[in-house]
């Protein structure tokens, strides 16, 4: 049996081990691969830089913890950026698990910058009701949230939220949607198209959202962990995404190498089979 025939019949467990090795090695010994900033990441950074002081930015967590490795780094870097520039953050969620996950991140970053809950940031969480709930928010934000935040505090008693009558550009400077599927970006584009929309999506979702970028329905689109690493570089707060770009690069290289070798094996073995 030739080496190419053996390669075609290789035990997948061997590939799993190889992948594990390729992912772990750069974590222990970082390579320091450069991170290139894309125009779509730069657009989010420039928007935050140009915001008037004290602007209220709405975060929408439309993801589950499974996608957090790709999405959370941007959320952290963006919170650094917003809190450094004295902006305010209101967090809502279209996914219930996203609400729980994001509240941990928000609380951590707010504590780091000494921000006061209800004045500088608030977390209103998730509500059942899907599209109808979401549509209602564009007319009545507090009513749509049943008047309370994620911890049961009265929204009309908090300085930050009491005047936020509706999810409209008059009350929020823009919305940053952290999305890994539906509901998410499509709801903003369809039901609330007037809100300036910025998106951090999992890499697998990015092709679906590119059509909104072309039509300027999305102002900025950050792709997966790479988007997070780029934003960390821009803000100067290197975190998990920057650290994990080396393993990601090595993992991709292994996959491409396997694709090339698999095709060589396929061609060589096909020719052999045809000759027989």
């Amino acid at each position, binding site marked *: 049996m030739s080496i190419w025939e053996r390669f075609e019949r290789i035990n997948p467990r061997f590939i799993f081990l190889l992948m594990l090795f390729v992912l772990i090695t750069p974590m222990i010994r970082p390579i320091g691969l450069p991170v290139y900033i894309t125009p779509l990441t730069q657009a989010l950074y420039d928007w935050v830089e140009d915001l008037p002081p004290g602007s209220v930015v709405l975060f929408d967590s439309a993801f589950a913890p499974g996608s957090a490795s790709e999405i959370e780094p941007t959320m952290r870097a963006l919170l650094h950026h917003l809190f450094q520039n004295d902006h305010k953050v209101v967090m809502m969620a279209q996914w219930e698990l996203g609400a729980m996950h994001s509240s941990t991140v928000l609380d951590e970053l707010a504590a780091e910058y000494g921000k006061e809950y209800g004045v500088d940031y608030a977390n209103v969480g998730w509500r059942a009701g899907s599209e109808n709930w979401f549509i209602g928010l564009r007319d009545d934000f507090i009513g749509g949230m049943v008047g309370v935040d994620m911890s049961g505090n009265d929204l009309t008693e908090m300085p930050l939220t009491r005047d936020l009558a509706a999810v409209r550009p008059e009350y929020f400077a823009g919305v940053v949607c952290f999305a890994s599927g539906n509901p998410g970006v499509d709801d903003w584009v369809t039901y609330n198209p007037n809100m300036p929309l910025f998106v951090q999506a999992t890499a697998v979702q990015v092709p679906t959202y590119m059509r909104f970028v072309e039509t300027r329905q999305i102002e900025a689109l950050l792709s997966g962990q790479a988007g997070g690493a780029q934003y960390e570089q821009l803000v100067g707060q290197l975190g998990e995404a920057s650290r994990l770009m080396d393993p990601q690069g090595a993992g*991709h290289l292994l996959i491409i190498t396997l694709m090339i070798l698999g095709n060589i094996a396929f061609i060589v073995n096909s020719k052999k089979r045809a000759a027989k």
Partner: protein
Amino acid sequence: MKRELPMLLALGAALLRLFLELSHYQRTEMQWQLHTNQWWAFLAATAVFIGVINLCRLHMHRIRRKVAHWQMSAWCLFVMASFGLYGILLKGPFQAGNQEHWFRWIFDSVLQPADRTMFSLLAFYIASAAYRSFRMRNLEATVMMVTAAVLMLNQASIGPMIWSGWGDMAGWFMDIINAPAQRGLAIGIFLGSYAMVLRMFLGLERKHLGL
């Protein structure tokens, strides 16, 4: 009447929704319109409760019949009931809030790592599939393989180190090839959904009524 009444209700709801959306387009919001949206949201929220009842019925049935892996059904019911009841009992049934330490601990230390681990496994399966599935069997498969390789090289930092042109090439794939295709797909899905909804509202489609 059993058939006509649900159909009439569906038609009425559809016309109301259409009217609301069209009037909102002109930004002439009215109080009753807002209340209708919130009422709809409440109705949708009650569906969660119905979902829980359905899930219980399904798994109770599996446990009673002792079908294969019925223990998993029991575990599912136990986890759902214990996590749900714990959350409700913390503050009482009519109070909001889920920031309690142990409630958060279950989420942060059990659910979150489990969910992340499940997604992380994809990396291994993709690597394994890479050498078996991405084959140049025909023109279509070759095009797909080349596109995947270009986009991967663009996404990873290592790509631009090999050649700086991956970004432009990936951009061309995404903007010129992918975006119009996605748009076409979205329009197709919309037309299909629209036709289906129209059939339901006109009473031509009755499967959702169990007829």
